[in-house]
């Protein structure tokens, strides 16, 4: 895979990128992977389904068991400022009508420095269903494009956890949902890398359901940044964007969540719940819920609040014997729990909760 030149990165003057810090990317794009060995054994959930290991964007066939997933040209491309770099070979999960993958698909992406740009496709025909869990570890820049096409009543559960020690992870999801299709996407940003999560989800036919949300946990000088747009193009659709952001030290976590309701997308039910928790006043949280509604019969609720841990609750817990760090961890865990609770499989949900827990223990 060649490393494309990093020209024309968006600048903070660009409204959609105002909270991003992409300054590390040019150097990462120039750097070469060290190819060092990273032990991934702790990152497999062993769910019994297909599994793929990508090291610096290359499939490690020996440690993979791709099942129905094919690797090679995907035909996927995007004009998105970062995802446009993801042009080479990638992976594709295509399931025919009524098919289901044998258990959740697990993909671990290891970065060893440098940059990797990887396109991917998930295409589920009518009534097919799949669950895909991606885990990002290591150092360097992992740049990903995922195109999601869901047929009628197809169901996809997509979960991603960003656990790199350093570097940057950028995700770009572009999803189109047919009638009655359902997408539930959950992203956990923990670890030490910078993050940019971009998604454009279109409910293209009536009665589709989309959830896109997650938890961003930021510390030190980290920047986590999510920009998600859900577009209701047809009637009777439902969408949920539930995000929780936690920031400590001088870190910044930012979430821009947008709902667009087209003129004939009547009876749309859209909900955005964006909440931020500042663990220190030197940290920053930016929340930007946006609504653009052209239909008249819709129900769209949105809330965005930023706060600190409740001092009364902290004292109550401490008065019962909890040391301050444990009291903070308990309240912060409760704050984040909603956002990770949407994950369907218990083992995946618990793994994400454990990652959040590890982050809290290391931070508080």
């Amino acid at each position: 895979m060649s490393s494309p030149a990093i020209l024309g990165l968006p600048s903070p003057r660009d409204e959609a990128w105002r909270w991003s810090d992409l300054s590390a990317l040019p150097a990462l794009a120039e750097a070469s992977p060290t190819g060092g060995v990273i032990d991934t054994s702790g990152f497999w959930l062993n769910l019994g389904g297909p599994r793929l290991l990508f090291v610096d964007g290359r499939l490690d066939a020996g440690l993979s068991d791709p099942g129905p997933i094919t690797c090679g040209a995907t035909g996927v491309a995007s004009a998105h400022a970062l995802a446009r770099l993801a042009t080479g070979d990638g992976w594709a999960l295509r399931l025919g009508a009524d098919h289901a993958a044998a258990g959740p698909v697990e993909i671990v992406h290891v970065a060893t420095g440098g940059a990797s740009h990887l396109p991917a496709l998930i295409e589920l025909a009518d009534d097919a269903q799949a669950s895909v869990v991606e885990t990002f570890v290591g150092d360097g820049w992992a740049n990903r494009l995922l195109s999601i096409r869901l047929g009628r009543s197809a169901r996809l559960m997509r979960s991603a956890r960003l656990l790199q020690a350093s570097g940057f992870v950028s995700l770009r999801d572009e999803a189109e949902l047919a009638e009655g299709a359902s997408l539930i996407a959950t992203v956990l940003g923990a670890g030490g890398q910078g993050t940019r999560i971009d998604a454009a989800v279109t409910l293209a036919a009536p009665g589709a359901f989309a959830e896109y949300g997650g938890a961003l946990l930021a510390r030190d000088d980290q920047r986590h940044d999510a920009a998600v747009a859900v577009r209701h193009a047809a009637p009777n659709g439902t969408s949920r964007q539930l995000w929780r952001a936690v920031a400590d030290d001088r870190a910044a976590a930012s979430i821009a969540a947008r709902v667009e309701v087209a003129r004939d997308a009547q009876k749309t039910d859209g909900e955005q719940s964006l909440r931020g928790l500042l663990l220190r006043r030197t940290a920053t949280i930016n929340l930007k819920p946006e609504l653009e509604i052209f239909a008249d019969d819709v129900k769209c609720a949105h809330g965005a609040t930023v706060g600190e841990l409740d001092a009364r609750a902290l004292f109550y817990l401490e008065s019962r014997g909890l040391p301050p760090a444990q009291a903070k961890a308990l309240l912060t865990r409760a704050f984040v729990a909603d956002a990770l609770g949407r994950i369907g499989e218990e083992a995946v949900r618990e793994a994400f909760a454990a990652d959040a827990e590890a982050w809290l223990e290391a931070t508080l």
Partner: protein
Amino acid sequence: MLTISNLHAETAGKAILKGLSLTINAGEIHAIMGPNGAGKSTLGYTLAGRPGYEVTDGSVTFLGEDLLEKAPHERAAAGLFLGFQYPVEIPGVSNVQFLRTALNAQRRLRGQAELSGGEFLKVARAQADALGLNMDMLKRPVNVGFSGGEKKRNEMVQMGIIDPRLAILDETDSGLDIDALRTVGDGINRIMRAPDKAVLLITHYQRLLDYVKPDFVHVLADGRIVRSGGAELALELEREGYAETVREQAA
């Protein structure tokens, strides 16, 4: 067990406790009564170490140690329990999770073995049953959606599970119906009436004292104990109000 000498404390820059002295020995039950705003809750918060309550003078010794130099969780581990006048709601944290974490944190600090999930549930169930609180409620988030009386009962369940040496109960009786008052009174006697334990009851009413008979009754007014007596003092105050006592003191 507890010796408070000449305690001065302020909150939000305002002096509230103004030279309060009180000694509580093991095996004793004390009641503190007094007009609204006298500083009763402030005393409880100051002893429990609530941030924002600053001690400007005086000392407090608890079980032979300086209480005021300890952090709130260390005071709890040392055996101090504060029953809150207004228990706090904590969405997203279940009672069971909270109390198990709390109890085990205390045990760890005391060098005791931690309780397993099963052992803890057994203790919790016994206390919940004794206080007439449904075990399902213990699985719900702390105090969220609890009625006023249920919150107070929950404070007593917590006290039963934690099993402290000294309990300061701030208006645990307010908001309780007649039956709950008896249940809570029985609970206090069962959990805390022991030769090596003590209770400081903050209350406005005689009713609770019918169930939990105090050895001493004190009147707190304007940041000081202005009068002390036996159980009969509470009856007298109920009859005559605070005016006389407070006026005598001012004179």
